[in-house]
């Protein structure tokens, strides 16, 4: 005996949302796969990038006139600082390593690991 339509309003609502989602996604994907969409969206992005480039270049000239550092200058300084910090940490690690080795031999427990002896479970008959 065939079951009648569900009386649960929540189930009907869920089905409706699911269908709506599928339909909108399918329609949007169809439109976004067109040359027009690709051309239009990229034109908009290129315009925004051109404005950003123009602003950055104009601002850099302005800041240089005022004898102030630009964002690029600060970023470059930050990069150099980071490189120096990384170099210092490597030196610190190299200096600390022998001391750490000594303390380990003095009895500091090394974290133990389980043995690598595990075998896969036998296949079911």
């Amino acid at each position: 005996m065939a079951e009648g339509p569900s009386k649960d309003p929540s189930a009907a609502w869920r089905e409706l949302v699911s269908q709506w989602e599928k339909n909108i996604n399918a329609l949007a994907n169809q439109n976004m796969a067109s040359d027009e969409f690709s051309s239009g969206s990229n034109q908009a992005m290129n315009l925004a990038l051109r404005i950003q480039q123009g602003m950055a270049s104009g601002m850099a000239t302005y800041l240089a006139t005022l004898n102030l550092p630009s964002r690029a200058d600060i970023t470059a300084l930050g990069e150099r600082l980071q490189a120096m910090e990384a170099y210092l940490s490597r030196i610190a690690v190299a200096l600390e390593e022998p001391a750490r080795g000594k303390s380990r031999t003095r009895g500091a427990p090394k974290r133990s690991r389980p043995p690598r002896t595990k075998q896969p479970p036998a296949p079911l008959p």
Partner: protein
Amino acid sequence: MSATLGEAPKLQSSIAEQVQSEIERAIRRNIKGLEYVASPAPAVGMTPKDVIYKRGTLNLYHYLPMADEIYRVPILIVMATSNRGYILDLAPGQSFVEFLLRSGYDVYLIDWSPPSPDERRLRFEDYTLDFIPECVRRVRKDSGVKDLTLMGYCMGGVLSVIYVALHPKTQPKNLVCFTTPIDFRAMELFAKWSDRRYFEVDRLVDTTGNVPAELIFTGFEMLRPASRLAGQVTLWENLGNDEFVKSYRMFERWSNDTLPLAGEYFRQTVKDLLWENSLYKGELTIGGKRADLRNITAPILHVVAEHDHIVPHAAARPLIEQVGSAEKEEIMLKGGHISLVAGANAQRRLWPRLDAWLGVRSI
């Protein structure tokens, strides 16, 4: 006729009960809704681990074993460059990493931080000839085992296969890929949006340095523009279900946590992979060497998702077709790009299948 008359009060009472139940649900939903807004996001990525190596954008974790004995061969997971690795370690009981640990694997993971401005120059060469080889070396040293299983998710899979193709003499013991695209022309919408006639990738990278996370996030969102709103409607309906809400929030947090991409790496992805489709054609050259997939001879498992809207099967299928491995297998499982590896679907489908394939190859 008398039966019909008798059913009328029953029908009325049933409708009244339904209305009452809906009102109660609505009230509960509103209370839970307030809790949702007021409570912090659930903690993720909590499985205990050591950071055994860190260099700029690169983090190499070693998860603390959870079994009394472990398989001889450790696993090194390479996460996708556009997203955080905690999708593989969501919460206790829902964590892929925890599952692997409890099943007796020794797990290492390469996770990515947002690249700093000076890392905008990172290229495929850095990822596949420096980062991954260095991590492989460190895993071998840390575990004391020469063999390892290399496991990559999405672009992490692409980097893994390029790495193996470029180092044919030091094959991993096993190679496992999840939803790894090879034929980038088959990712139709991405290919269309980055059409070389309209998409000025040089201008983008030269202007922004690293490609902003918002742009990457929008690209993923546009593949299914209605899904976010539909997800929120479903959340509203399930606000009374604590487990659903927790899971929703974890996935929501992860998908919003998209990473920026290193500028040069993005430029190469667009020009070499999307425009020239060079990995598929066997023409991708990295550091003067050709990344030929036929160089891959390790046993390989590729798991793909039936409803993957980011990496459709047509884009992923050529991996198994092209590798030179004698032992190779592709498994298609129900689910999407993310639900393949995380959540209830993954727990039920992927994790046990993977364990069955990998366990016997990890001794």
